[in-house]
């Protein structure tokens, strides 16, 4: 392979080379340093006169004496069944002291788009054991449902609880977890690793770790490696794969850094204008394929800068994913775990995965009614602060009360408390029964007759 020594400029993570042979756009590049270490990069711009290479590690040590080798192919990743149970760096190299991965295949990490015509309709209910998810923001196989959180909130704990408890009731098919950390601290990473070990989850997990002190630009490829692995496990080995990506905010920061180095016209708050498309190319790699076994379900985690949901990172994510679980600081301060605020939370695929044949026929209506009650009760809190409880009507007082018990009984649950969907729905009915039956306008009378505790004398489970 020919080696060039024509570097003429290095700016941020970008290396500019003078005239070379024709080089392919997007090609993988190896840079050989004077001391023999090899760094990797990718071609971002190629012409007769100039080639721009983005380096995935620090540019420390790269200089005019660095040899540049163009590999003539896209960045590929070796994948194989053996990856289960392994811990890899954010760049895909084993860091657990174990042997190199023996590849069964080498796959392009960009991943091709699933043809929308080939997609299957996600409809398998995943029981996470968390009421605020199962009951009111149901997750289904093949969905991408992010957790929107803030700095210092227990989103990692929640993600772990989901990873540990998630199951499709009645299903015995193989499953795996792919965990990709981007720019999180060693301490956070340990937290995940210890929990994986404690629960034996590591055995069926593949872990990618790009930590806070690892090169920021490496974060650009970490999620791609993780998703390529997930697609392999899902669509070639037929497993149901849950992918946890944390923290997407760090990924976006890396994207911004590269944009700045390329002197691009920045979009909102300095993030590149193509960030929507870039994120979509990650998130859209969730799904199922018609007539094939396996699925990729994604739970990306991001911390909203300043807890601001309109910040470009949560905003663009929300526009791509199929809903969001919003972790809330106020609930956390009240000592409620998991501090999920159901009001701005949403699962768009919920309707496909609930109801008769999936969960229970009353699921949708119970969920809607609880939302309505909680939303109204929550609004009234503001009013009470001004006019006092006495100025409220009887109905309003009940709703106010409902908001409190909703938070304390439905939202609040233990870290190891794994509620079945039956538990969650019955709990929902118990809470609703504190309101007068006439107030339950969102539920059909038949369902009320069948499930409301007042009438449910010995009602049987379905």
């Amino acid at each position, binding site marked *: 392979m020919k080696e060039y020594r024509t570097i003429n400029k290095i700016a941020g993570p970008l290396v500019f080379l003078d005239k070379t042979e024709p080089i*392919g756009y*997007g090609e993988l590049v190896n840079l050989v340093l004077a001391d023999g270490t090899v760094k990797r990069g990718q071609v971002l711009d190629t012409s007769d006169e100039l080639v721009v290479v983005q380096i995935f590690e620090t540019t420390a040590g790269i200089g005019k004496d660095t040899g540049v080798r163009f590999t003539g192919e896209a960045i590929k990743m070796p994948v194989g069944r053996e990856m289960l149970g392994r811990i890899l760096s954010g760049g895909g190299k084993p860091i657990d002291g174990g042997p190199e991965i023996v590849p069964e295949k080498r796959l392009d990490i960009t991943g091709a788009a699933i043809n929308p015509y080939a997609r299957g309709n996600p409809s398998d209910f995943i029981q996470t054991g968390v009421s605020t998810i199962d009951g009111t923001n149901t997750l289904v196989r093949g969905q991408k449902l992010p957790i929107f959180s803030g700095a210092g909130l227990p989103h990692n704990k929640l993600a772990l609880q989901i990873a540990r408890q998630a199951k499709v009731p009645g299903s015995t098919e193989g499953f795996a977890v792919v965990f990709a950390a981007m720019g999180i601290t060693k301490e956070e990473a340990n937290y995940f690793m210890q929990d994986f070990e404690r629960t034996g989850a590591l055995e069926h997990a593949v872990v990618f770790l790009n930590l806070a002190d690892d090169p920021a630009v490496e974060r650009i490829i970490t999620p791609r490696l993780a998703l390529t692995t997930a697609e392999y496990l899902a669509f070639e080995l037929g497993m149901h794969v849950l992918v946890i990506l944390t923290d997407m905010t760090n990924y976006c920061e890396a994207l911004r850094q590269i944009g700045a180095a390329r002197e691009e016209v920045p*979009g909102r708050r300095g993030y590149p204008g193509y960030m929507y498309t870039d994120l979509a*190319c990650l998130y859209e790699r969730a799904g199922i394929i018609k007539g094939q076994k396996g699925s990729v379900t994604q739970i990306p985690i991001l911390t909203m800068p300043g807890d601001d949901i309109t910040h*470009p990172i949560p905003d663009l994510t929300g526009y791509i994913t199929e809903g969001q679980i919003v972790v809330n600081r106020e609930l956390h301060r009240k000592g409620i775990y998991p501090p999920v605020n159901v009001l701005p939370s949403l699962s768009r695929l919920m309707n*496909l995965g609930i109801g008769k044949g999936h969960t229970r026929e009353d699921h949708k209506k119970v969920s809607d009614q609880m939302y309505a009650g909680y939303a109204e009760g929550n609004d009234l809190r503001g009013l009470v602060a001004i*006019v006092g409880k006495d100025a409220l009507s009887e109905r309003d007082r009940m709703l106010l009360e409902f908001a409190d018990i909703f938070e304390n009984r439905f939202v609040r649950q233990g870290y190891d408390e794994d509620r079945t969907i039956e538990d969650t729905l019955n709990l929902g009915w118990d809470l609703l029964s504190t309101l007068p039956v006439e107030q339950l306008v969102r539920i059909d009378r038949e369902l009320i007759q069948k499930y409301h505790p007042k009438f449910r004398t010995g009602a049987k489970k379905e």
Partner: protein
Amino acid sequence: MEVKEKKTKEKKHAVLKRIAGPVVTAVNLDAHMYDVVKVGKEALMGEVIKIQGDNIIIQVYEDTSGIRPGEPVENTGLSLAVELGPGLLTSIYDGIQRPLAVLVDKMGNFIERGVSAPGLSHEKKWTFKPLVKSGDKLEAGAILGEVQETNIVHRVMLPPNAKPGIVKVIKSGDFTVDEFICVLEDGREYPMIQRWPVRVPRPVREKMNPTIPLITGQRILDGLFPIAKGGTAAIPGPFGSGKTVTQQQLAKWSDAEIVVYIGCGERGNEMTEVLTEFPHLEDPKTGKPLMERTVLIANTSNMPVAAREASVYTGITIAEYFRDMGYDVSLMADSTSRWAEAMREISSRLEEMPGEEGYPAYLAARLSEFYERAGLVKTLNGARGSVSVIGAVSPPGGDFSEPVTQNTLRIVKVFWALDAKLSQRRHFPAINWLNSYSLYLESLNDYYDREVSPEWNRIRSWAMEVLQKESELQEIVQLVGSDALPESEQVTIEVARMIREFFLQQNAYDKVDTFCDMKKQYDMMKAIKLFSDLAYAAQIAGVSPSQINTIKSKNELNQIKFIKDYKPELAKIEKEMDTEFNVLRSAA
């Protein structure tokens, strides 16, 4: 010998000079703007978007990874065009009209590049029934005959740019789209297929003012903010507020004859949902599967951005083609913001001077050109047809002051403002009744008088007034609580709540409630009005608002929307309401 060599040297090959993402530069290429070119060894499809000295700048509709400088480029000399003819209905295409089903056959479940596939099947035979005879004089756009495509009749037309002529031969029987079915006296021969450049509007004889509503079966739309057939509407809202659900509801239930649905830079799963659901849904008017009147364009967010930019044009051209047959077509574009972003991305790669928020300066012009292709028209063949356009807008942070929303609002006549506050409390459709508007109300009044009830316009104004009044009262309630309001205003608050919860809220996922015809809308609103009249009368007669709130039958009204044959139940409730009020009044 020497001379010859010199010649070949002079005529240099057209080659690529630079590749940077979806935009590439070629040299030595004879090209005009918007020519379609084949890029690289794999002959990827691209389009000329800028000419700068010797540099021809091309946007490529497929992924450009691995393409190198020096690879060949070839100009087809054609513009980006779609194939129009039998076979469009029930299809799902990408942004440049490649049928996704065919792509699955050719390259599997994932979209690889370098595969071309024509928009229509060129093998399938269709039964063509002529409607002209030899000797007939034909103008451009004339209907030559029919094909029963699905349950929809496909009218085969002379292309809109054809010169007039006299029919010499017209065939009848089974043909592929390429076989000639008509020969004119001057020797011109026509197959069923037409090709039309997507960036050029198809001509019409005359544009007319819309006077008939597009009935959508959605109460807040039909009832308060209707769109006319041939009209334009925008539906902006933050993520998760209901743009897609509303658009899909319109695709399902609106009384258009043809639906073109463009998933532009949005989710793959949403298109799958349409594909799996539509074949099982029946058109309430014809009882036939909804899929049979539908054409889908799916260029999802992870598919190439240049093809996303083209998808909107591909869709509207197909819509115009069916309009030209005399059909009422409705087109949904979800989301026009992603289209605008595609323009922005391409523009920034061209290093054009950015306008507001990085969008190109021509954003407003492109948006208005697009919406101008909507309309109620007299077609070249004298029929009435229409294209209604409903565009979703996805403003960053849900802030409507951004350029795409603002430029869209300057053009469209109907504004359905989605509101995160409403969607968060699961008030669906989360359309804000105070901010939304329709500029068609007046021109549609006659229709409602005639087809719904002479009372309709009055009752709608009444409902709007109550809602308006409520919002003023709510400001006071927020400060002092509702008990401090005068009694009559407490009644208003309750009536407004009934309008919001019983009438405006509509569950897209309920078997019955998903579609509500105009008669039922009218009956529901009338029943709420009846309650209102009884309540004010009772209040004047000395009944207190808290007593009025105990009326049981009032809440029963909310069940009406879930009942298919609601009339007996509604009559019962109205009677009970009357009885209950009588009891209260006699006690007062």
